[in-house]
């Protein structure tokens, strides 16, 4: 018989209590891990390497992408500014402007330019078919996975129907949650026909350190125009677009830490009840020659095991939720995927382990410090 066997047998003395504790820990860990996976997804969304060297030109005082209508010809004037490498006019169509758990975001742009400037790689399907067929689309792989979209089929959203020509991967994680179409197709397909207008311009620049200065130059160019602009580095744009999400996430994190506290209290309560029932038994162990440290170790390992079982179950459930519920949270057209990773699994286990150890400390010390003769007299 090994320590593990003794721990297992002790935990199954009260199977219902153990099961309820493990379920409680699992529920708390599920919430904690989901919050952390959203946080990781948001961090990932803001981590694109190109975000610092890309400017986004929007309509000033826009409420959301749906209300930004910039003349398409602005692209020609922006392109003439020194330091600008390329300008991509983009039409955006969203199902929901604010924070949403089921964001569908179409982005329409000139196909050839989009393929050359966006840094995307078609991993399934045919990029040339997309260029040729004006009503076709390339679907980001995160969106394709979430909506079970396959190459060759049609995807309908509202009155927009596109043929899926390919599925793409991108170095920019936010790109993988959108559907790319031809510019004119989207200009005509939306609820309001706005041919000749776009939602935004994506401006690639040579030098990231000039992002602020160039943004000011672009805005100055259209300061007195009918549609004045608001230009920012893409990273700032993403941060702005996800502000609501980050505020929600900040609150959710408090809930996440509350979940950790719940785990701690739950495990500590169970372990405390368990050791209170075994005071005499620990006295017997000490009489047999077990040291106080052996008793403490046994209690801490039991606490750790409870917490880790619950943690593993919670992590498993979180993985199932992320991979099968296929939700994506998005704001202002920026899709954020819940992101699971080995790092998150390690974090989950580390938090569960830390909770288990901390929760077991007080019962362990109480058990270890008890006088043997007093323990043996206990009922």
């Amino acid at each position: 018989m090994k320590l593990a066997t003794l721990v297992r047998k002790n935990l199954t003395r009260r199977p219902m209590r153990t099961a309820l504790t493990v379920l409680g820990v699992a529920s708390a860990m599920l919430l904690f891990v989901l919050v952390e996976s959203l946080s990781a997804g948001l961090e990932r969304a803001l981590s694109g390497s190109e975000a610092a060297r890309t400017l986004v030109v929007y309509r000033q005082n826009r409420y959301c992408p749906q209300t930004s209508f910039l003349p398409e010809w602005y692209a020609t004037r922006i392109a003439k500014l020194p330091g600008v490498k390329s300008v991509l006019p983009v039409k955006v169509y969203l199902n929901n402007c604010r924070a949403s758990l089921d964001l569908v975001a179409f982005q329409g742009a000139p196909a050839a330019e989009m393929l050359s400037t966006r840094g995307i790689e078609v991993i399934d399907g045919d990029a040339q078919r997309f260029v040729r067929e004006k009503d076709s689309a390339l679907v980001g792989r995160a969106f394709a996975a979430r909506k079970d979209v396959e190459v060759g089929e049609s995807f309908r959203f509202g009155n927009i129907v596109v043929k899926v020509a390919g599925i793409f991967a991108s170095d920019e994680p936010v790109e993988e949650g959108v559907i790319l179409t031809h510019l004119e197709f989207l200009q005509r397909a939306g609820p309001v026909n706005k041919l000749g207008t776009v939602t935004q311009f994506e401006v690639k620049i040579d030098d990231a350190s000039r992002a602020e200065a160039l943004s000011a130059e672009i805005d100055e160019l259209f300061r007195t125009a009918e549609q004045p602009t608001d230009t920012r580095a893409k990273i700032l744009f993403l941060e702005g677009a996800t502000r609501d999400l980050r505020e929600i996430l900040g609150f959710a994190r408090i809930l996440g830490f509350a979940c950790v506290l719940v785990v701690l209290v739950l495990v500590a309560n169970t372990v405390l009840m368990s050791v209170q029932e075994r005071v005499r038994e620990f006295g017997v162990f000490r009489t047999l020659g077990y040291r106080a440290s052996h008793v403490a170790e046994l209690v801490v390992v039991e606490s750790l095991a409870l917490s880790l079982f619950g943690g593993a179950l919670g992590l498993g459930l979180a993985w199932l939720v992320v991979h099968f519920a296929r939700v994506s949270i998005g704001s202002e057209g920026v899709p954020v995927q819940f992101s699971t990773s080995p790092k998150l699994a390690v974090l989950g286990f580390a938090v569960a382990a830390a909770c288990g150890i901390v929760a077991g400390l007080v019962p362990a010390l109480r058990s270890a410090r008890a006088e043997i003769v007093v323990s043996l007299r206990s009922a």
Partner: protein
Amino acid sequence: MALIELLEVTKTYRKGEHVVTPLANVSLSVDAGEFFVLLGPSGSGKTTLLNLVAAIDRPDRGSIRVGGVELGTASSSKLSDWRAEHVGYVFQQANLVPVLTAYENVELPLFLFGLSAAERHKRVAIALEAVGLADRATHLPKQLSGGQEQRVAIARAIVADPEILVADEPTGNLDHESAESVLDLLSHLHRERKKTVVMVTHDPRAARYGTRRMVLDKGELKEEGTAR
């Protein structure tokens, strides 16, 4: 030769508001190989004295030397190690771990010696054989009778082959037949395995198994007589 020597030992403890002194300046010597029986009424301090001999309690004053080792001043971990090696304790109740089988209960003390699984298995088998319960190895305590439980407890006490067996009213919770069986077993271990047995009881019939008997009454030790 004296294996256990108590010299002017005093032990007090608090019971609510009162300070109780079950042992006051008690001196005692037990030779190696004796079956020493300590008689006395309830509350006379018998168990307190036994606990001091087994090193699970410390005296307030006086000296306790067992096998030449001064127990009163040793550290807690040193006492634990000493107990594991030198003392087997049989309680009034068997005090078996309820979720472990008879085999696993008997195996418990052996984990402290870093023995191989094969060696542990051999020793547990011998101990269970010695108490006549080899065929009950896989039974849980709740599947055993009171007498069988107490015999498993004796197997647990002897499995590490200690020199001293201490028994605190080992037949107190048993019927007559089971009590006889347990006492015969202790007597057998004393005779055949040369164990020094220190047994506390208030039952004169159980006391007859001892080679020397003393009575503890109001903190005072008196010689009662020698064995049958």
